[in-house]
């Protein structure tokens, strides 16, 4: 046992940078100590790494369900849940118990097996997506060479599981809700992928840790080289962020399961823990997609200022993640829900052209930088992005001026 403690006393094991990897290395040390076979050690390590990621994001999910309600409350000048535990800390526990004790109703006409399978199929891709993101300089649970493509492949899986959830409930309304949700997710995945392509083109790789490494360094001493701070990155980041709201079915685009819409969309016939699984899937999907946004545009675990080497890198990732998710909540507290046709028109006529615009802008940006003319690159890309926006505003205003509203009065 003593050698284990000596091993565990390695300075680097307890250093804050390696803290998230502590369980994984402890399990590996333990297995090696009991000289387990090689493959068992690696499996144990992977399991421990996965367990840490899961533990981190389960607590984050519990906290987010509380923080969301408190932030929405604060925006509406009220306090938000503060009954369960001090400041409402135990509210997620209360919700969890409520969900567990609720009776699990399966409608008669439902396909029993698929009805059970759907919530599982929604949570699995969300959790798998969390495994790919680079959280810290040393902490990337699964450093995939095709991390980004893996991410969008999982996005495709959620659509099939949403369909199964809607169709397996048997009745018409969940099916309609599912069709709406799928058409929204499909049409919002396009700008998501297109704006990510701009990032791939600039950083030249599909692997997420390398994209974050590419965003290291500081221009002019203090300006971090994040993609969001470049003109094409700003537009791409905004499009990515708005598309991720659509992809996660969050507030302005939460038509499928909005309260005033078709009951709860594809989740109508679920109750009890299956319903909680849907929520877990939605929140983990929210974490995953905003984590990807942080990695692609906000420079993952890169520190904002040069002098902050002592702070462990994963702190920056989670700080940025918290900021992005606060923005989600803020937007949820502010904007009304879009109608289905407005939602689709906005997706196709506004987001996709803007994301298509970022790709040539990013191309020109890299070429000019490679040719050494940094300043010209800024000017050209800004011009390339701002001019179409101005043109669109002019057309928008002229259209607005010309549009005479036609009123149809009810026949008396």
């Amino acid at each position, binding site marked *: 046992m003593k050698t284990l403690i000596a091993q565990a006393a390695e300075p680097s094991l307890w250093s804050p940078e390696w803290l998230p990897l502590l369980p994984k290395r402890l399990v590996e040390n333990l297995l090696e100590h009991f000289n387990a076979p090689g493959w068992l050690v690696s499996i144990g390590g992977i399991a421990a790494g996965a367990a840490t990621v899961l533990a981190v994001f389960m607590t984050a999910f519990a906290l987010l369900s509380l923080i969301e309600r408190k932030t929405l409350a604060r925006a509406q000048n009220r306090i938000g849940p503060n009954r369960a535990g001090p400041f409402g800390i135990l509210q997620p526990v209360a919700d969890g118990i409520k969900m567990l004790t609720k009776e699990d109703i399966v409608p008669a006409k439902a396909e029993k097996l698929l009805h059970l399978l759907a919530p599982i199929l929604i949570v699995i891709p969300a959790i798998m997506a969390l495994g790919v993101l680079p959280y810290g300089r040393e902490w990337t649970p699964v450093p995939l060479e*095709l991390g980004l493509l893996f991410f969008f492949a999982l996005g*495709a899986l959620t*659509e*099939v599981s949403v369909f199964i959830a809607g*169709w397996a409930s048997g009745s018409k309304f969940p099916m309609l809700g599912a069709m709406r949700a799928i058409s929204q997710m499909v049409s919002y995945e396009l700008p998501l992928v297109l704006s990510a392509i701009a990032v791939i083109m600039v950083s030249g790789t599909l692997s997420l840790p390398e994209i974050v490494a590419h965003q290291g360094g500081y221009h002019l001493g203090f300006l971090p080289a994040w993609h969001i701070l470049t003109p094409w990155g700003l537009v791409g980041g905004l499009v990515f962020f708005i598309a991720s709201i659509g992809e996660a079915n969050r507030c302005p685009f939460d038509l499928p399961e909005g309260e005033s819409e078709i009951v709860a969309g594809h989740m109508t016939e679920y109750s009890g823990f299956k319903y909680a699984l849907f929520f877990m899937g939605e929140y983990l999907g929210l974490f995953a997609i905003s984590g990807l946004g942080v990695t692609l545009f906000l420079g993952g675990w890169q520190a904002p200022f040069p002098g902050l080497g002592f702070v462990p890198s994963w702190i920056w990732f989670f700080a940025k993640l918290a900021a992005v998710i606060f923005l989600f909540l803020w937007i949820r507290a502010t904007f009304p829900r879009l109608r289905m046709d407005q939602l689709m028109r906005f997706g196709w006529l506004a987001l996709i052209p803007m994301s298509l615009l970022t790709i040539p802008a990013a191309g020109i940006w890299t070429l000019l930088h490679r040719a050494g003319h940094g300043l010209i690159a800024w000017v050209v890309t800004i011009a390339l992005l701002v001019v179409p926006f101005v043109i669109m505003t002019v057309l928008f205003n002229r259209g607005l001026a010309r549009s005479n509203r036609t009123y149809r009065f009810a026949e008396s």
Partner: protein
Amino acid sequence: MTALLILSPLIMLAALGAVWKARPVHAGLLLALTLSLAGMLYIALGAEFLGLVQFMVYVGAVAVLIVFALLITRPRDEIEEIARRPKSVGPGLLCTLPLLATLLYTVDRTLPEAPPGTADLPVRRIGELLFTTHAPAVLAVAILLTAVMLGAALFAREPSKKP
């Protein structure tokens, strides 16, 4: 190799289900399952890029599209399907079995001792190849896809009701 032996029977079963299942939506979902298992097989064989593209394009788009079409047309003919099955199975088998026999025969006869082959698929290499040697093909496919998108949108659009 072991992954191959696990996945192949699964794919065969899922494909059989997709073909034989009376209820159309079940067949569609089983098709999605076959496609995702095939994607996993590609990844097991070392072609991750193709496996993930298969997931994204086939499972994400084509399978969902097929199942959507099934939803819209909502066929309820699984009863006649079973009723008329004996009549259509005979000729169907009559055509496919000889084809299967010849395929398996050719597989068995022409198979040299397979060298280990390369197990990795460098994505950067694919990118270079796509835009150098196969550049015209990529442009052609791009034009084709846009044409298909517009065509499909025009086809499926409701005839606009004159106000």
